[in-house]
């Protein structure tokens, strides 16, 4: 600058020559931490990921749905029947209330059905054939994922319609059948062969006969557990699984005007609420322990009580007769076990339904070498494979929580392992990041936003019809709810790091590409780490 006064006047921006990065003793780095919801999802959904897509609205809904479909082919079903452990661990619950993940998932699932969104297998055909036994959540999930991976899948199911427990165990008012049918049809339309009313007697023979390279067993647990209850001849005793299954038949179960249900799980609630809808004046749940010990989810109990289901805590059925039951009052001992008190009372009941758990029918494994069963369930290894090479198992017939979501998760995991096995390799799940706990967040930046309450059907209609009890969110609500996500541990491109750096040492790479540090100028002050809302940056000591 020959014309400007020497030294006193300077050319703009010339300080870029001064690389202040050399001052640094620590450097910030971008990280992806595992959101608690993702960590808790039995189906392994990338919940934060699809909420991120969904909150864009518009085309974002499709991308969000697609993101769910990478892990779980049943968003609409999930949005109704999943017990959403994700919401239980949601960090937002510590701020106001958990994000309504389940309701957003349902919105996306319903939207997909409405719009007729489909998904195409993205792998070339492998030429391998896989036999799946059981068209329940686990079997269908496996079929879907295996098809996506390029394999030819055939499902054999003993039922008249696919869905397993989703159809024969979950009442319509929780899962309308058109939703179930739509999501199953989408899988079948991908080219899965389904054989109904086909009970496989021996899996090894079936594989050999059909020329299958591998098999996935997911027959579920459909045999209602019967406990011994002294009963008169005229006592009308049924099991819960049969009652719920017969709801899908032409002949509805005859339960009478007063119904007692023994058990404290979700199935007990389902039966009691079904009984109400079938016209029972009194539906009573008899449970040995106290409410807080009940395995049923709180909201199921709440909804049942709302609908007029009566609860008898600390009670057991000592004797059943025609029209009445003898109930013994229990008391909790110091160890937390219920103990009989010797106090008795009578309870009118035209029928007694036992909801005390289910067992799997493992007859199809008889004589298959290497397969071990223990306590009524099949042993599998980390790869979901039984002791017989090439035969995998999942769902309610293996030891784990018996929920639809867990079953779906098994189906995915089994499919990935079957795929690897078919390709003579090993399936290596991705590295699990450190969980993004609440203390990693800077919650100041999240605007106050309490959860949206889903509409519920009014009580009169709930107790008289099988219409769906819980409604869905409309688009505005769903968007709002999606945007309540804190995106724990994962950059959501809020630009905070880009804005708060006093040294302009953050480079914004544009939509979807996040940011990077310009270590030439970063002085290592750490403001970006402190002010990242979602905990996606951490400091690392600088190495010399």
């Amino acid at each position, binding site marked *: 600058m020959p014309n400007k006064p020497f030294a006193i006047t300077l050319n703009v921006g010339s300080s870029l020559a*001064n690389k202040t990065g050399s001052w640094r003793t620590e450097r910030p780095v971008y990280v992806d931490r595992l959101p608690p919801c993702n960590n808790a999802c039995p189906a392994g959904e990338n919940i934060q990921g699809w909420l991120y897509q969904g909150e864009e609205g518009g085309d974002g809904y499709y991308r969000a749905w697609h993101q769910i479909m990478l892990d779980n082919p049943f968003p609409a079903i999930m949005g109704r029947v999943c017990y959403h452990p994700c919401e239980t661990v949601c960090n937002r619950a510590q701020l106001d209330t958990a994000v309504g993940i389940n309701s957003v998932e349902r919105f996306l699932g319903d939207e997909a059905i409405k719009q007729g969104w489909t998904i195409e297998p993205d792998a070339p055909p492998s030429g391998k054939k896989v036999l799946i036994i059981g068209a329940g959540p686990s079997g269908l999930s496996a079929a879907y994922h295996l098809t996506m991976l390029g394999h030819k899948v055939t499902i054999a199911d003993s039922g008249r319609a696919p869905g397993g427990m989703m159809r024969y165990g979950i009442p319509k008012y929780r899962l309308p059948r058109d939703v179930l049918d739509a999501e199953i049809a989408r899988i079948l339309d991908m080219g899965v062969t389904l054989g109904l009313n086909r009970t496989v007697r021996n899996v090894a023979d079936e594989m050999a006969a059909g020329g299958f390279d591998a098999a996935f067993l997911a027959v579920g647990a459909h045999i209602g557990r019967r406990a011994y209850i002294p009963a008169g001849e005229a006592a009308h005793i049924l099991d819960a699984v049969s009652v719920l299954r017969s709801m899908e038949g032409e002949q509805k179960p005859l339960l009478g005007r007063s119904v007692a249900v023994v058990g404290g799980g979700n199935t007990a609630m389902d039966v009691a609420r079904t009984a109400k809808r079938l016209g029972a004046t009194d539906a009573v749940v008899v449970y040995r322990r106290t409410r807080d010990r009940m395995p049923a989810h709180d909201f199921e109990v709440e909804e049942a009580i709302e609908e007029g289901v009566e609860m008898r805590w600390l009670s057991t059925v000592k004797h059943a007769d025609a029209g009445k039951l003898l109930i013994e009052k229990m008391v909790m001992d110091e160890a937390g076990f219920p103990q009989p008190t010797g106090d008795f009372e009578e309870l009118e009941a035209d029928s007694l339904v036992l909801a005390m758990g289910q067992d799997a029918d493992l007859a199809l494994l008889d004589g298959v070498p290497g397969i071990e069963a223990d306590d009524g369930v099949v042993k599998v290894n980390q790869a979901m494979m039984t002791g017989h090479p090439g035969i995998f198992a999942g769902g309610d017939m293996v030891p784990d929580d018996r929920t639809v979501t867990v079953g779906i998760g098994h189906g995915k995991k089994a499919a990935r392992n079957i795929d690897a096995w078919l390709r003579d390799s090993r399936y290596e799940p991705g590295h699990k990041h450190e969980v993004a706990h609440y203390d990693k967040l800077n919650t100041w930046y999240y605007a106050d936003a309490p959860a949206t309450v889903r509409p519920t059907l009014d009580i009169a209609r709930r107790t008289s019809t099988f219409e769906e009890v819980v409604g869905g969110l409309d688009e505005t609500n769903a968007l709002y709810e999606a945007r309540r996500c804190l995106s724990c541990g994962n950059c959501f491109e809020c630009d*905070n790091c880009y804005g708060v750096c006093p040294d302009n040492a953050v480079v914004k790479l544009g939509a979807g590409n996040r940011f990077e540090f310009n270590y030439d100028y970063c002085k290592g002050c750490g403001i970006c780490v402190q002010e990242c809302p979602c905990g996606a940056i951490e400091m690392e000591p600088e190495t010399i």
Partner: protein
Amino acid sequence: MPYQPIKFYQTGSFVVGNRLLDQNERSVQSDTERLNSLTSGHRACQGCGEALGARYALDAVAKATGGRMIAANATGCLEVFSTPFPETSWRIPWIHSLFGNAPAVATGIAAAMHAKGRDDIRVVGQGGDGGTIDIGFGCLSGMFERNDDVLYICYDNEAYMNTGVQRSGATPPAARTATTQAVGPNPGNVFGQGKDMPRIAMAHEIPYVATATVAELRDLEAKVERAMSFRGARYIHVFVPCPLGWGSSSNDTIKLARLVKETGLFPVFEAEHGEVTAVSKIRRRIPVEEYLRPQRRYAHLFGEHGHPETIERIQALADRNIARYALLDDLPDSLKPPGSAVGRQVRWQSEDLSEQTSAMAILTETTGAH
């Protein structure tokens, strides 16, 4: 409430950017095309609040003026760290003259622009608290009084940092500086001194006065934009923590700016033509202790030989602001004017302090007012 142009929840309005917003609704700082009026390579300390505040404010001015702006800078940290020969970090036309004359230099530039018929070029004067409210006070008041077409921005870090952290007229009570040391029976800066520059500015009845902090970018940008919609003298007083001078962690700069506002110690408001027109309500009220504790300049107030009574006096100052500017939606009874006070217990969002003396009672004692 703090400035919330758009309510998003995950991508809440308190963050710098929001990928879901229309481009024209986004903050200036979120823009990859932002000017970076103060660019990289400057020699400010790690975590410097002033460097941040200056870029925030001037980029917003640049946005509002389409880059047609000139800045006049007082001597001080901002000047020294940005323009040591042979490098400058500025990307705007910028002049540094003296410590105490930045407002007058700015007036001169504005006069020149007006004389040349270039009123489209807008002028910003800026300096630290020393350059603004102490040594530059005369020039500033003159500029205000003449209603010269200048936006003056004070970056307040509450002491003379450039010369080694000496007390200024903006140093708060009890704060340790090199000339108000934490020694003797009443350690730190004395109570009952100091200037409230925003209110002095308001007394000039200039078109626009606002306070802001580096913790609320959208609010700061909105105020700059508002300021630029006026002709005449405008004043924005920005609270900028100084890790070096305050003995705070370099990564706590924004946090401290956030906390000071949430205590009420630094009221964030706007005034037009001498009247307060808007205040930023406290969002999550905290006791002053939470703000004071992370700063070593207040370390003498804590611990075994601490001064809890001094903390109470500082709390009273915060409460006075809360009452004066109505910083809470629901003013606790203890902060209502005497006569209407029913309960005297202050309720806290934080549970650190269970027993609070009546704030008004302290106020009465310290000021003699009632």
